[in-house]
């Protein structure tokens, strides 16, 4: 088997290679160490502040298409790498406790193309979506379980705009787990009696309407959820989506948000890889801990 960075985590759970339902990580958690490095590269080159920066933006889209942007070596990212593995393991463990054992596409697993969409590079996105859809069809996929809100948004809301008769059912794992709250509660091995403040993701709440699910799952794990001022449909952004280009602005957005959260609790729950990477930067400096829901699931099961 070809070894690619995004399949490393899957050695443990040994998920089947084919099946009607697949777990689609879309490499989002696995990309975290690489995204950080790429961001540094771009910020130092400052292509976006020049007058001809626009061309650079389009080229960036091209490079993502070819995956070149994430083929770079990662730097000092062991922690993030092990964190992202734990998250994905936690999610698969929790799914298996409710009797769900999805397939995984391993080295064939595609990226959703969400950055291209955000940048308005619709011509590239169309090409990419068609490619991904054909790949899913080749694998006979009928249902996708996503682990991050951006991928779920793309596959659920955007892909059908480009594909006639789009017939793949798309769900976020939080939706599936929350439909099985009782079973989850029964098989919880370790109750995580603690208070956490929750940071909702913009896409998860305002685009997908997935709000109460994280709360009911947390309750099943014994967690007490505290709500910040800006929460649920009024949640505030972590700043992540523009980090590739506007680092200073991102930092201001994320500082504002992390302060709001840290004032309520030192333990913070997030449910999105982009929020995780942007908010966990402040762990040392502020003496806080940012947990992805997947890590908590790993602790509990």
């Amino acid at each position, binding site marked *: 088997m070809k070894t690619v960075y995004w399949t490393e985590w899957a050695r443990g759970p040994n998920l089947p290679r084919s099946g009607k339902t697949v777990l689609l990580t879309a490499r989002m958690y696995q990309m975290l160490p690489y995204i950080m490095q790429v961001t540094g590269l771009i910020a130092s080159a400052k292509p976006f502040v020049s007058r001809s920066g626009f061309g650079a933006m389009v080229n960036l889209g091209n490079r993502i298409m070819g995956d070149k942007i994430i083929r770079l070596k990662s730097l000092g990212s062991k922690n993030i790498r092990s964190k992202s593995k734990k998250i994905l393991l936690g999610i698969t463990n929790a799914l298996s406790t409710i009797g769900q054992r999805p397939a995984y596409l391993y080295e064939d697993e595609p990226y959703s193309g969400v950055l291209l969409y955000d*940048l308005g590079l619709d011509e590239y996105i169309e090409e990419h979506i068609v490619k991904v859809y054909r790949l899913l069809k080749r694998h006979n996929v009928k249902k996708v379980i996503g682990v991050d809100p951006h991928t779920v948004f793309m596959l659920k809301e955007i892909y059908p705009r480009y594909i006639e008769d789009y017939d793949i059912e798309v769900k976020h794992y939080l939706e599936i787990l929350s439909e099985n709250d009782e079973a989850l509660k029964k098989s919880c091995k370790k109750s995580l009696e603690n208070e956490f403040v929750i940071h909702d993701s913009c896409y998860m709440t305002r685009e997908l309407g997935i709000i109460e699910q994280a709360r009911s799952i947390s309750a099943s794990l014994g967690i007490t959820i505290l709500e910040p001022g800006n929460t649920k449909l009024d949640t505030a952004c972590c700043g992540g989506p523009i980090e590739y280009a506007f680092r200073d602005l991102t930092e201001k957005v994320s500082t504002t948000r992390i302060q709001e959260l840290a004032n309520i609790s030192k333990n913070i729950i997030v449910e999105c890889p982009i929020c995780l990477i942007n908010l966990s930067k402040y762990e040392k400096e502020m003496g806080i801990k940012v947990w992805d829901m997947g890590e908590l699931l790993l602790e509990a099961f």
Partner: protein
Amino acid sequence: MGVDQGQAIRETLLKEIGKCRACRFCVDVCPAYQAAEWVENMSPYGRLQILKYLINGTLNKDDPLVYSLYTCLQCGRCNRVCQAKGQDLEVSNLVRLGKYLLSQGLVKGKKSEKV
């Protein structure tokens, strides 16, 4: 990308931007505007104005103001408070569509099609 599609997108954008009532409720809630310390072109309302002036030719695509469009986080907070009536597209979608217009060279500027 044909001229016709460019024209259609420009018309859609102008029509939708025309529904804005300039209430500015979207301005204060925008995280990018807050982070940019209250510079109005970094707000949703400001971005719509920039788009409008790009389309009618007052601004060209090489203008530094255009970068404000790319500072949008696509977070959708503006959509929650927007008071425009009868919109077909939400504010954040208009901003995204504006980026598409730019990436296709459908507004005035170097190497762009004439509007």
